[in-house]
């Protein structure tokens, strides 16, 4: 594992992605590479723009999405106070970045692996797909509310097989739930691996089916974080034994039978 560190890097580019009804919702943020000797998918970074001064105190966690040793790109959904200021940064602005943080998704090259993404939960799967030694064994399924073009879905469908479902009307939700059950049952029968990232209700559904159907599955949690390094105990979740564990250091990825959502 590479050495973690914290340093200042410059923003190289901020580009909106897709056309959601709310303009300016999804962005790719490209930063100078922070000089790590590597990272693995599932891991994340904390970033904190210098311009925040003492307004907003905490950095914000984002999944490691794409990086080539020269640049590092994050995929950011604008949902609130911090992210709205992050997506309005300009090239040349400075951010503090610390990482790579947290654990990683399981990689089993020869195992059929199902990637279940709920909306922005697709972010960590870009790194996963691009670094997987046998992408032919992967299938990515995206459940989305906003138009599919908002997500890096087309990009990934060039590399791996994909499926998707939109949740536009209330009745769509049941279709998605039924589909999740069917897909998880299929991977459980093939002793496959199921990896999931998305909103908590989505992950709860996946966890319930995985536990019921005996699928080996992991979920990646997105708890609120202050330090990102395991010190503040603000991000905890309960492990399978009822103990509070830090999502930032013991996770963000957990096996579904070892976490309470």
């Amino acid at each position, binding site marked *: 594992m590479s050495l973690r560190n914290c340093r200042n890097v410059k923003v190289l580019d901020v580009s909106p992605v897709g056309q959601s009804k709310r303009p300016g919702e999804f962005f790719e943020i490209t930063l100078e590479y922070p000089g790590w000797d590597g990272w693995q998918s599932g891991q994340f970074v904390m970033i904190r723009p210098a311009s925040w001064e003492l307004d907003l105190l905490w950095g914000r966690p984002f999944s490691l999405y794409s990086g080539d040793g020269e640049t590092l790109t994050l995929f950011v959904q604008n949902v609130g106070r911090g992210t709205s200021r992050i997506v309005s940064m300009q090239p040349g602005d400075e951010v503090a970045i610390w990482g790579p943080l947290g654990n990683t998704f399981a990689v089993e090259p020869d195992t059929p692996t199902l990637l279940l993404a709920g909306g922005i939960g697709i972010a960590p799967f870009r790194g996963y797909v691009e670094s997987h030694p046998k992408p032919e064994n992967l299938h990515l399924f995206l459940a989305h509310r906003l138009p599919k073009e908002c997500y890096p879905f087309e990009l990934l469908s060039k590399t791996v097989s994909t499926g998707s479902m939109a949740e536009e009307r209330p009745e769509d939700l049941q279709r998605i739930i039924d589909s999740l059950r069917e897909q998880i049952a299929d991977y459980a029968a093939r002793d496959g691996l199921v990896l999931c990232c998305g909103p908590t209700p989505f992950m709860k559904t996946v966890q319930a089916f995985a536990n019921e159907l005996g699928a080996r599955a992991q979920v990646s949690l997105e708890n609120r974080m202050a330090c990102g390094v395991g*010190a*503040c105990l603000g991000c905890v979740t309960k492990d399978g034994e009822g103990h509070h564990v830090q999502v930032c250091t013991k996770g963000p990825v957990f096996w579904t039978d070892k976490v309470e959502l």
Partner: protein
Amino acid sequence: MDMHVSFGGLELDNPIMTASGTFGFGLEFAAYGDLTKLGGIVAKGLSLKPREGNPMPRIAETPCGMLNAIGIQNPGVENFLTQAMPALKRMGVTVVANLYACDAEEFGELASVLAEEEGVAALEVNVSCPNVKEGGIAFGQDPAQIGRVTEAVKKRAGNKHVMVKLSPNVTDITVCAKAAADGGADSLSLINTLSGMAVDIRKRKPRIANVIAGLSGPAIKPVALRCVHQVVRSVDIPVVGMGGIASAEDVLEFILVGAHAVQVGTANFLRPDFAFTLVDEVESLLEEIGAKSLEEFRGSLELPL
């Protein structure tokens, strides 16, 4: 500039420590800086038995601050001594243990466990347990209790320095300070968090599961500075100041008012190397403002006649 400070038998390479609960057991930050560069670290609150702490959500960001209701989650003092202490000792880190208990007897017991550990330089007594026996009033709000707890800890702490950490959630903090000093405290540290709350109008729910939480960060610095100012003038023992420190200037403000040392808490979340860089910044700022020494600068605040 000589940054060394010494008070009540405690020797620190510089006056910058990290505050309990914001720096883990220190090891979490070892990837981001040299822990021995800090004057010392105050470990996260320890109790006799492991504690799971409060339910989630436990933290919320507020303007220039944050609320927390972690509930002293910790693996218990034995675990700290066997798991974290050996590495801290090997590295040569100055460690202050922060104690949490709900009566004087239990505080005394904790102190006696830590008294044996040569790697622990001092004990910091956190008196903010909500004391159910006394009708829910926190220990730290009752001067008589503060006195009893301080005595109990001091009696069983061997030759360790005992620092009593005061809460600002009182009418007159100097009364609490005197009670701790009379109980035999070697120094006082202040302030702990201010009692606060945040709600979500859309969900119509509190933002913290525990409803009431502790406010920290730059938002509380003026309150902290006022408390240190009042306490250094009311007791003869040294004071360690904290609350909202987020720059070298903030550190020197506390020292100017009379603090012997400071602790940095919430600012460790601005970036994990914050406290390490602060040490150098304080040294250069002291030189820049023309102070001859820390000693000369400390408490040199000129008040209106």
